[in-house]
């Protein structure tokens, strides 16, 4: 048996901020949309602890599954925790209702964090066990909101999936890469803003995510759904033109959320479930590129029929 995604929960705590917020720094809605596809984003309350936000999506998964499955691990992907010790995964586990015999740890691979966490979670999953992979980002705490280059790009959000083994699931496979020589393309810290070489990042994001998708799809199992890191609609559009995606649904939710770093893929997937815009079961390919550089993708089966039925009710 092999593991796949069987449930999802997402949330966007805080305030909804549309592009008119940036009128004061001379950026119009039309200008922002044309360059990024972003129409709005959510910014968390600055005082809300990130572990509280993560618990909002992990607790429902624990509640729905802990009676049937041993939730053996919780992985929290984030690049906006502030880099402090301790990590937040242990507090998220406690606040979400998990018992203390759980493997709980943080992953920081910036925008690739959810994909890296998912590859790890799938690899940890054993029969009778489940793993929660969560991404929690408060990018509003990193950005300089008055910076014309990066202020409008980023948003906040949290999402989590539960993975478990099922007899019907086909093998998952993954590909990932990193290049520390390109560390200068994207950097950031809380209170220090985000520095971004926009042209180079666009160039590399298109090339590395396209290459990763090509590598995964040549191994077989054509996807029903492709979800790329939701950084910029123009990156997603370019990739969709270059890869042989067949009849797969190519997801773009940049307009609603902006770039939410590691949280972007689960937020996009959560929107698909709520809108029932993807098949309830099938195969998906998730791919990301981000600071580090770190990029990667994973092709896996999913069954979100129960999640879709729940969103209907």
């Amino acid at each position, binding site marked *: 048996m092999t593991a796949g995604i069987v449930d999802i929960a997402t949330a966007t705590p805080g305030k909804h901020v549309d592009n008119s917020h940036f009128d004061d720094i001379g950026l119009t809605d039309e200008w922002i949309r044309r*360059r990024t596809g972003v129409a709005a984003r959510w910014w968390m309350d600055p005082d809300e602890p990130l572990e509280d936000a993560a618990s909002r999506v992990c607790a429902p998964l624990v509640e729905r599954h802990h009676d049937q499955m041993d939730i053996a691990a919780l992985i929290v992907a984030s690049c906006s925790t502030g880099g402090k010790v301790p990590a937040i995964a242990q507090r998220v586990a406690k606040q979400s209702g998990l018992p203390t015999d759980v493997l709980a740890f943080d992953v920081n691979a910036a925008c690739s964090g959810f994909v890296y966490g998912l590859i790890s979670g799938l690899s940890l999953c054993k029969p009778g066990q489940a793993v929660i992979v969560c991404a929690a980002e408060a990018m509003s705490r990193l950005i300089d909101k008055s910076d014309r280059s990066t202020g409008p790009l980023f948003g906040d959000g949290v999402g989590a999936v539960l993975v478990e083994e099922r007899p019907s699931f086909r093998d998952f496979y993954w590909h990932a890469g990193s290049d520390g020589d390109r560390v200068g393309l994207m950097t950031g810290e809380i209170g220090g803003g985000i520095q971004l070489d926009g042209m180079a990042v666009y160039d590399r994001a298109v090339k590395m995510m396209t290459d990763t998708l090509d590598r995964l799809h040549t191994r077989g199992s054509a996807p029903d759904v492709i979800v790329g890191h939701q950084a910029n609609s123009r990156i997603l559009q370019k990739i969709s033109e270059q890869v042989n995606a067949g009849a797969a649904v190519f997801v773009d939710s940049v307009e609603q959320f902006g770039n939410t770093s590691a949280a972007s893929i689960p937020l996009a997937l959560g929107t698909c479930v709520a809108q029932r815009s993807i098949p309830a079961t099938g195969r998906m390919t998730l791919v990301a590129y981000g600071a580090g550089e770190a990029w990667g993708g994973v092709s896996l089966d999913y069954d979100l029929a129960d999640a879709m039925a729940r969103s209907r009710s």
Partner: protein
Amino acid sequence: MPAEDERMNSVMLSIIRRRTPSADVADFDKQIYDLDMDSLDVVDLSQALEKEFGVEADLERVADCLTPAEIGYYFRELIGSP
């Protein structure tokens, strides 16, 4: 006109005309931003030329170019044509 020039012009016009549908080769000396192109369009242009001619560009060099003609000169250097 050499076949290589025709290929280059064709690729460049395919990108430039997304923003300025009436553009022609005579417009290659105009400023990139006067053709309604932004920095990501310049990356698209560079990637299209890389793919067409099988070369790898230095994006910093491309970013320094002010006109499509300058980008064309740079790629001719890469390709090794006169």
